[in-house]
């Protein structure tokens, strides 16, 4: 006997077609490119798995991958706790709620390339507000165009400035959904602020934080525009993240085969880490 109506699946079809058109078919083309060599004119030569072998053994790829993990790790350990802290400090009711929400949403409304350009000008040592202040007022030797550490500090700060709001807004949404009764019960039991956070607020925020961490992981792992506009991958190669290196290979050197192989490896890593995060964070709910 049929107990479920399966007609709803047909409503998913348009999305499936759209995804096929904008993701699946281009992806298949990348797979095809990754085993061939081309010099343009739509003429291809079979190469087998040469490009994969070449990319997997290249120091350049290892270095870019290392920088990419470093970048993602740093922004996650800064943005997630900072976002939670700001969300906890925000008012839950009254006049200041919409003001805070709008202020928080502002950085996310700015296009990525504009964020890169803004921070570039902001951080330039001689004319930028931040660069000039650090160098000439505080006397700190800071030049993101010459010094790799300064460049890293700048791209991390820029990403924190741009995307902590996302964590804040999601964590805040989780916080306001907690019924007052929980806090009252905690008060009667004489719970400390830390216990309230640990046993009421954090578990209630878990689902939205899972989404926040996943989104920030995927976004930061695939980041291109902001660091490209800010540092162009320099000085040297010190801020050349995976996607910047990928574009250099694909468009700069027109090595489409190796670039396709590299993007598939990149995709597999993103898929695996996303799966791992999601599985670990939802494990207890499902069991």
């Amino acid at each position, binding site marked *: 006997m049929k107990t*479920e109506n399966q007609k709803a699946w047909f409503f998913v079809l348009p999305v499936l077609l759209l995804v096929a058109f904008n993701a699946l*078919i281009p992806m*298949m*083309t990348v*797979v*095809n*490119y990754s*085993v*061939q060599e*081309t010099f343009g004119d*739509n003429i*291809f030569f*079979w190469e087998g*798995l040469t490009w*994969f*072998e070449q990319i*997997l*053994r290249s120091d350049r790829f290892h270095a870019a991958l290392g920088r990419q993990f470093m970048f993602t790790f740093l922004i996650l350990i800064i943005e997630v706790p900072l976002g939670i802290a700001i969300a906890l400090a925000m008012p839950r009711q009254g006049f200041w709620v919409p003001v805070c929400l709008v202020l928080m949403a502002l950085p996310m409304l700015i296009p990525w390339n504009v964020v890169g350009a803004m921070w570039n000008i902001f951080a330039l040592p001689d004319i930028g507000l931040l660069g000039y202040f650090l160098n000439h007022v505080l006397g700190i030797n800071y030049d993101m165009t010459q010094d790799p550490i300064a460049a890293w500090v700048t791209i991390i700060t820029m990403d924190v400035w741009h995307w902590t709001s996302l964590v804040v807004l999601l964590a805040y949404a989780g916080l306001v959904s907690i019924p007052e009764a929980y806090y009252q019960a905690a008060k009667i039991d004489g719970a400390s602020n830390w216990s309230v956070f640990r046993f009421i607020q954090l578990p209630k925020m878990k689902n939205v934080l899972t989404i926040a961490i996943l989104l920030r992981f995927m976004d930061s792992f695939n980041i291109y525009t902001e660091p490209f506009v800010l540092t162009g991958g320099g000085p040297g190669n010190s801020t050349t993240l995976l996607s910047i290196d990928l574009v250099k290979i694909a468009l700069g050197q027109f090595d489409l085969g190796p670039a396709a192989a590299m993007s598939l*490896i990149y995709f*597999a890593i993103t*898929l*695996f880490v996303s*799966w791992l995060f999601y*599985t670990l964070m939802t*494990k207890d709910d*499902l*069991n």
Partner: protein
Amino acid sequence: MLSWMAWTWPTALVFIGLFSAIGLLTVIEIKYPGGAERKGILGLVTTRGDRLFLTCLGTSFIFLAWLGLVGMPLWAPLGISIGWGILCFWKV
């Protein structure tokens, strides 16, 4: 019409295999609904779809690791991957 996609037989076979597997799972799901959910050796609750996903993801990493660390030929990782697939559907 499809020349811009630069198809080759080996890559086409990969996709035919992948879509056949998804198609086969759909047929099995219609016949035996519920996805054969169970808690496997990884401590995760998995369905048939999850097990196929883990098989494919694991296979790609087995091959990539072998290519990076050892190189051609690829018979050994093929064997490991088949073993991994059997393990996924049997125990995970």
